[in-house]
Every structure is written in C-alpha cells, then in structure tokens.
C-alpha cells in the first residue's frame, strides 16, 4: 500500500493512469497556534455550515424540508453547496451501499478540512433494517470518521436540526477533529474500505 517515499502505491490504477492522480499522503493539520484565533474560526465554522449536496440514501429526502420556510436552516448559516471542494459538512443520508460508500469516500476526501460528517438514520450506526443485506455496510465509522449520529428511521427534520446544533456545539468546543482522525488513522480506514470495496479503481486517496 505504501511506497518507500511515504506515498501511496495506488495499486487500484492501471499503470498508464498512475500519472493522472496525485499519490501524496495527506497530513493532519494543526489548529491555529493562538487559541483565540482558533476559537474564533471555530465559531465561524460552526456558523457557516456548507452541506455537501449528495443525497447518499433515503434520508436525503429529509434535507429538502430543512431548507424550506418551515424549518429554514438558512438562518443557522446552513446552506447547500454543489461541490465537495467547497463544502464542510457531509450529511450521510441513511443506509449506504458498498457502491455508494465508494463515492462517499471519494467525496469526503475531496472536501477540504476542517470537515464534518453528520450520519443520519439507524442504518449508519448498525445497519438498521439492512443488517443482513449483502451490499450495505453496517457501521459508517469504520470507513469515515463520523462526528454526529442522528438515529431514527427516518429521523424527522427537527431531529436533523438538533443534530446540526450538536455539531455546532462540538465544533465550537473544538471537538470535531474527524478530518485529522481520518488522516492519522488512514491506513486503518483504508484497510476497512478496501475490505468491502472490492473494485478499487481509484487512487488510494482521492485528493
């Protein structure tokens, strides 16, 4: 999995594709050295939650009412961005099949840190009603770090909102270091991912 110079071997790629993908290993980022600054930025991160617009499961349907007049998540600084590069929150909308997991990993890795994951529904916790499905993963946190779980099948938008509040609280408190956890334990995560994703035709880390 690793090259000598601490880069990825990208074994999943064809030889002629090697040069098309970056094979560098990500490194964990440090918080700002001045605590006040870090706190200030954490406050801003908490108040500017940009959701990655990727409905990964049936729970994604609960995101739409969140933006309507009834719930108006906008007022909490929550808005949807169409590209992972610009988003900071990944809402996993419930069950995720192996196939979707691959896309989730790709998108998650393409998000820029600090990034947060909000897992929605019981399926992300222990498989829920899909506990014996041959193509649904059972524990999301084996594959990507999750900051907040919202249980239920399905959780209502109110539950989702309360999940966001919990996320905000954690961000402000500086507890949301999922991105760093992911990077630090990357090999473990990659092992888990590759164990279920048999057709790994992408680089080891999707920059």
């Amino acid at each position, binding site marked *: 999995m690793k090259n000598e110079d601490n880069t990825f071997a990208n074994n999943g790629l064809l030889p002629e594709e090697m040069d*098309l*993908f970056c094979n560098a290993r*990500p490194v964990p*980022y440090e918080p700002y050295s001045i605590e006040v600054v870090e706190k200030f930025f954490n406050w801003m991160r908490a108040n500017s939650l940009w959701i990655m617009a990727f409905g990964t499961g049936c729970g994604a349907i609960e995101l739409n009412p969140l933006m309507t007049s009834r719930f108006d998540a906008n007022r909490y600084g929550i808005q949807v961005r169409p590209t*992972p590069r610009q988003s900071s929150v990944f809402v996993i909308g419930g069950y995720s099949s192996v196939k979707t997991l691959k896309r989730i990993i790709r998108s998650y890795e393409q998000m820029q840190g600090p990034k947060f994951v909000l897992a929605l529904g019981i399926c992300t916790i222990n498989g829920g009603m899909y506990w014996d499905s041959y193509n649904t993963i059972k524990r999301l946190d084996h594959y990507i770090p999750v900051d907040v779980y919202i249980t239920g099948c399905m959780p209502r938008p109110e539950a989702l909102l309360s999940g966001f509040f919990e996320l905000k609280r954690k961000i402000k408190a500086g507890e949301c270091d999922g991105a760093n956890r992911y990077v630090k334990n990357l090999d473990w995560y990659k092992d888990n991912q590759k164990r279920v994703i048999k057709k790994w035709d992408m680089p080891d880390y*999707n920059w």
Partner: protein
Amino acid sequence: MVNELLNPIIIIIVALATGFLLPIVDKKNKSFTVVLFFMALIWIGLIALNGVVNFSSGAVAVEVITAGISPPFSINLQFGLFESVIILATTLIAIMTAWLMLDQLKENVSTLVLFLIWVMGIDGMIMTRDIFNLFIFIEITAICSFVLTGFNHNSNALSAGFKAIIAGTLASSFFLLGVMFLYYQTGTLNIDDMVNNQSLITGVIGHAALVMVLTGVLIELKPYPINGWALDVYQSAPSGIAAMMSVSVSAAYLFVFYKLLPLFQAWVPMITLIAGLTFVVSNFIGLKQTVVKRLLGYSSVAQIALIIMAITLLNGKVSVSLLALITGGLFLNHLLAKSALFWLAGMLNKTHVAQWTNLKKSPVVLFLFGCLLAALVGLPPFPAFWAKWELMMQLATHQQHGWMLLVLLGSLLEAVYLLRWFSGSLNDVKDEESSSPIRINTVTLWLSTVALFVSGFTISHLMGVSITPLFAPILAALFLLLFDELTGKTKAGITCVIAVFYSYDILLHLTGINWIFGLMLLMGSCVFILGSMYRDEQRRGYFPLLLLLIMSLGTLLQAKTSLNFFYGWELMTMSSYLLMNCGKNALKSSFIYLIFSMGAAYFILFAFALVFAQTGTIQLDAMNTISQYQTLIFACFMIGFLIKLGGLGFHVWLPGVYSETEDDYTAILSGVVSKVGVFGLLMAGTHLGQTINDEMVFYVLGWLGVITALLGALMAVFQEDVKKLLAYSSIGQMGYIVACFALMNHLGWVTAMYLSVNHLLYKGLIFLAIAGVIYRTQTTLMYKMGGLLKNMPMSFFSALIGIIAISGVPPLLGFGGKWMLYNAMIEKGWYFQAGMAFFASAIAFLYLFRFIHTVFLGQRKSEHKELVEAPFSLLIPQVLLIIAIMVFSLNAKWLIQPLSDAVAVYYPSTLTWTGTFLQTSQGYWDGYLVMNVVTGVFLLPLIILLLVSTTTKIQKVKQFNIVYAAERPDKPETTHVAYNFYAFYEKALGFWVKPRATQFWNSVAEWSHTMGSACRILYTGNGQTYASLIVLFFVIIYFV
C-alpha cells in the same frame, strides 16, 4: 565573302540545296546527314543573328530581288530587324526541336528534308514582300506541316493532319483567289505597292478579294470558332512538331498578318473582336482541358489572339517601337515558354494533366516547369509581365477599357488552368510509375528558361525601369539556391543574416509610412526566420523563396513607381504561393490563394492603368493629380488589397492556407504578408484619398471592415483546427484595420497602423507558440491537445500574452488599439460600426478562451505526457516579440508617436500627449498609469493569498484529482471539453456564418467550367464541321 554567305537569300538557297544534298549524302554516310542538316540550320541561324546584330545597330533593311527579274516571277525578300529577330527565334526553336526529335527525324532522310524545307517555308513567309511568293511559302509550310504532323503514323495524328489539310486547303484557296483579284485590281503583287495603292481596291471585287485574303490568313491564325482542326493537330502531332506549329509557324503567320494589316483597316474592329473572343473563349475552354498538349494548344491559340488584339488595338496609336515591345514581349514569351512546354510534355510523355504529379522528386524539372509556366502566366520577371503591363497602360491611355477587362479576364482564366497544372504537379502521389525520378534532357529547357530571364531583363531594360531593386530579389534567391545542399538550420541562419543586412539597407532609404511598414515587415520577417531554425529537415527551396519573399517586400516598400509596386506585388504573391506549397496538404488552398491573388493583381493593374491614362506617368506621387474615375480606381485598389487581407467575401483562400502551410511560415504569412495588404491600402489612401469627394466608398469600406471583423471572429469560434481558428481570427483583426483605414482621418489611420503592428506582434507570437505545439504534438486539431501548460509553460506564456493582447484587455497594448478604434469611430460619427466592433471584440473572447483552454489547459492526453517545451530556436523570437509587446504596453507613446507623425503628413494630428497621458477629442488614456494600477491591484490579492497560504497546507495535485460527481474521470479524452466547444453558440448564431462566400465562389468556378464546356460544343472533331465552319466564317466576314 562572309557578307555574301550571310545574305538572307542564302537562307532559301541553303535550305533547298541541303534538301537536295541530304538524300545523296544519306546514301553514303548516315551520320554525315545529320551533321549536314544541323549545319544548314545553324547557318540560317547565323544569318539571322548577323541580321539582328546589324539592324539593331541601325543598319537599313535589305531588299532582295532575285534573278534581276521583277516579281512575281522572282523572289522578293525583305530582311530587316523584325524579320531577323523572328527568324533567329524560330530557327533556334527549330534547331532545338530538331535536336530533341533527332531520333525520330533521322530514321528517314525525307523527314529531315521536310523539316528543313519547313523551316525554309517559315522563313520565306517571314521575309517575303511579294504576296504570291507568300502564297507559295504558305503552301510549302502547310504541306510540310501536314506531313510532319502525321509522320509517326499515329492514327489520331493522321486524321488531325487530314483535317489540317482541309482547313489549309480552304485557307490557301481563299488566299489565292484573293491574291488573284488583288492583282487584277492593283496590278502588283508586292505588298508594299499594294498598300500604297489601296485606293485601287474597290467595289465588290476588291471587297471580296480582301475578305478572301483576310480569311485565308485568319484561318491559319486559328481564331475561335474555326480552330478545331488546329487543336487536334496540337494534341496529336509529335510534341516537337506541335511546338514548332505553335510558335514558329504562328510567328510566321503573325508577321504575315502584320505585313498585310494595312490592307485590312476596315476590318480592324472585327478582327479585334474575333481575337478578343478567341482569347477569352479559348481560355474558358482551357479550364475544362485535361490533355496536356491540347491544353497548351488552347493556350497557344489564346496567346496568338492576344498578340493580334494588341496589334489591332494599338497599331497606329502608339509608336512602332512600343508596339514592337508589347507584341515582341508577348511573342517572345510565348515562343520560348510554349515551345519548351511542348518539349517537356513530349519528353515526359504524360498525356493527361492528372498524370503530372510527383515533380518534387526532380527539383530541376520542377524549377524549369515552374519558370516556364510563370512566364506563360505573365509573372515577373518574364517578358510577358512587362509586355502585359505596357499593354494595359497603353490600352488605358487610349480608353479601351472594355478590352482591358477582356484581356484581364482571359489572362485570369489562363492563369487558372496553367497554375492548376503546376499545382497538380506538386502533388505527392504514391504510385510506382510516377514516383521514380525523372531523367530527361533538360538542356533545351534550360536554354529556354535562361532566354526567358534574359529577354525579360532586356525588355525591362528597354522600358527604362531601374533594374537593381527589381532583379536583386531574384538574384539573391537564385544565389541562395546554390546552397540548397546545406542543412536547414544553416540556411535559416544565412537567410536571416542576408535579410537583416538587406532590411538595414532598405530602411535607410525609407521615410514616413513606408519606413514604419519597412520596420514592421522586414524586421518582423527577420525575427520570424529565427523561428524557422526549429526544424531539422533540409527544407529544400524554402529559404531561397523566403528570401525572395522578404526582398520582394523590400521592392514593394521602396517602390516609387506603380510598375515597381506592381512588380513587387506580383513577386511577393508568387513567392508566398510557392512557400505555401512547402506545407503538406496546402496544394488545394494555396491554389485558391494564387487564383485570388492573380485576380487581386489584375484589379490593381487595372487601377494603375487607369491612373496612368490620366497622369501619363507611372510615378506614384503623381497619382493624386487624377481627375476622373477616382472612385472606380480606388475601389479597384480596395478590392485588390482586400483580397490579400482576406476581407469578407474574398477570405475563402485564407483559412485553408493558414491551416495547411508550414507552421513557422504561417506566422510570417499572418504577421507579415497580410500587412502588405494594409500597406497597399495606405498606399492607395495616401495617394488617392484626398482626391475622392464621395464618402460613400469609405462608408462601404468601413462597414465591410466591421462586418469582416464580426464574422471573422464568429467563424473563428466554431473551428476545430487551431490554425484555422487563428486564421479566421486574422481575418477578423484585418477587418478592424480596414474599418480604421476607411475612417480616412488621422486617428483612424494611426489606429490602423497601430493595429497592424499589434497584429504582427501578437498573432506572430501566437502562431510561433502554436508552431511549437504542433511540432511536438503532430496535430492541429485542438481536441487532440489539452493540458500542455505542464509540458510547455513558455509556449503557454507566449500564447497567454498573445491572447491578452489580442483581446484588448488592459494593460497590454491591445487595449490601445481598441481604445483608439472606438475613439476614432465615435469621432467620425460611426456609432453603429463602433457597436459592431465591440460585439466582434467580445466574440473574440470566445475563440481566445477556446484556443488557450483546449490547447494548454484542461486535461492532458496520456500520450502527451512526455512532451517537452518547444525547440529553443522557436522560443527566441517569441521572447523578442513578448519584449516588444511589453515595452509598447508600458509606454504606448513609443509606438503611437511615430505612427502619428507619419500620418500627420497627410492629416493633421488630433492626438495630444501630456507625458504618458494620451487624449483624443472624447477620451483619454494613460497607459503607464494603467499598467501600474493593474500591477498594484494584482499584487494586492496575490499578497493576501500568499499570506493566507502560509497557514494552510496546499497540496499540489494531478489532473484527474477533480470533483467529478463523486466518480473518477475515465480518460483524459472524455474529460477534456474541447470538441464542438460552442455548440450552443452555434445553435444561437451559427446561421450567420454559413459558408456563403465559399458557395458563391464555388458557383463562379462551376459556372466558368460550364461556359468552357458550352464553348467546346463546336469542336466535334469532324473535318466536315470544321470546313463548313470556315466557309460560314468567310460568309459572315464578307457580309459584315
């Protein structure tokens, strides 16, 4: 004794005596026969040569009357300058023909005898002053012709000979009958006496007599429609014989016609008409020809008709020497070139035009072939060029405008089929038969070609033009041709050095606008030649031609007379055409270029002739004294120069040429050669602009300019081929220049020149950059490139600077052009034109982005992974150009001030400078300050970003690390957006750019060919038809 031996009568005697001797000698010693035969011919030649030498130094013509008896019972000859020259020429042709055909001729001694007698008959026709003698000689010549036509017993030739006999018999019958009647009325057979006693030729008999004689002579001169038999002869006779028929026999008949012309004064208009008809129709039919010798036949017929036209139109109106110059020039040209082409056709033994391919394999043959065709088409420095020029001048002086147009139309048509032949011969066809090198005896061709050069030189000398600037380019090119064996890089170096010295020399002698253009064009070329070193190939012929091109630009810039200007123009056209053919697939498009350029040249020639008619001088400075037809003249100039520029409607040649020629040459073509059109516009403008009161022509030109700009830009948007894109972009840029020129005020002209300089800099830069890219990627299709920034950063930088400059975005110099453009247009009151120009410049962003994105940005193809930066020698000129762009961007004054001063000679300046602050009547612009502000506002965010970046880890990623809707991209080819980039724009506005101009010109070509076919209907190949046509012809002449 020597003088006795050189007496003209000896010609006849030698021929006859040898004729008798040959069969006798042949019995004894075969080889001696041949020697004797040639000795006789050479003797004749020497007599003629002696005559030429004597008479040109002022000796009186010799009158020979044999046997002391008065004509008609003796032979009455006159031997003067004309006669001796023509005899010399025909004899030389005869000697060379005989030499080439020797193998065939010497098989049978009677053929040799016939040939000799034939020559004697021709010479006799030329010399005799007795009309009955003339008949005899005509008969002798005709009989020999018939026999020689069919001497190799080919059935086609025999049938052609038979048709010729029918026609010849009819002709001589008419002639003899006419002579009879004339003798009856005048009591003399001497032509001079007959002319002097013209009053005696009266009544029906006199009329009939003259018509008969005239018909007899005309039939032999092969006018349309009674020349079907002649064409059959040309096609099927052995090519040497055909050559003789085409030039020597025709020469004799022409001279006969000239001698008899005083008798036919009443018919002169009709003869002119017939000749004119023949000239145009033959050339129309020539378009449809595919058989080489028949094609040459049509050309011969046309050339003879042209000479007849020149004689009939100008006889008595201009001095004899001038007439001799014109007709002589045309004739000599025809004689040398046509005979050599017939020989070549015979030696190569390729019947059809389509078989003439792969001549590149034999450079010498190609060179000779090209020279001969160029001579035939009337390109400099060959005699026909000078003769045609003088002909046009004289026709214009005598108000023969209709005939001028006719001559030009016919010449253009002739140029089309002759040059198509040439262009086809450059084709590389892979087949074994035609790809082997050609081994033929080129001595005679060399002689003809050298003779053509020399006679061209002589004629120009006789015309009194200054030789040095005109012939220096050709000599330099020929000189460089000697070093063709060296490597390409060395040759590029040599060329560059010569060009630099030459430019320096030229620039010392130029002032004003010419100096600016000199600096632009010559220095620009020198810079671009540096780029030519990037290729390893030897590139045979490329550099001499390049030098020729550059030096012809010098000729053009230096021109003080319209002749020099036109000469330079033609030379430039020719050399640029030949250079285009160094490209791989450029044949078709370069041919179109050549045809359009020929058309352009004829428009310019027409305009110059009209000017000459009014001023009586070819000095350019005198042009502003004209008082008539100013608008017409100006319009002709405009059309001529717009074709060169690629103005709307005339642009069809441009994209093809730009895309197919060698990549470094395209830079020269776009950067330099297209500016010549601008120079031409300014030339016309400076000399004629003041004389034109009617603003309409400028108004039209202005609209034409902005519409060109708009549609050029729009067409560029939809191209897949990068060089085509840039070509259309050039068309668009030229459109702005034309529009600015049409403003006809100070600011407009300054803008036009400023834009020209800009275009030279940035388009040259882009073309050089893309040349490197094409060199590395081996494709010109943009969708096959992409992401090359990583491999070729310097080329990218060049392209980037180029597109910023083109688009007119501040702070680079392009903005100055745009700014002045709008100011000038608003000042003039051309608001909508300004709006349209703005639209065009907005559209420019579309194609510029497409260009830089699809080539340098986006996804790189996997096969381009290993590419490296463009060759160093290609980068040097780019760096130079970038430096120039940067300097002029930083201080626009350095560029605008000299332009403004140069234009201020013609229009008072409306620009005011305060330091770097430039002001017009509406606007102001401080390029220096803008540059500083832009630098400032650029640095501000850059510093912010750099500072912020210090706290962030920025990972450099690869091309596929993109957000791709959570998928991974499949292949670079499918991820790179390039093909049909502006599909939606095409949906919106694509209907504006349907290829209407191309369709129009295609239909013109189609129509011309249909005309040709229609005219051909009369040529049934049936002797009876031909005979009845001749009779009909006679009847018509009789009653008209």
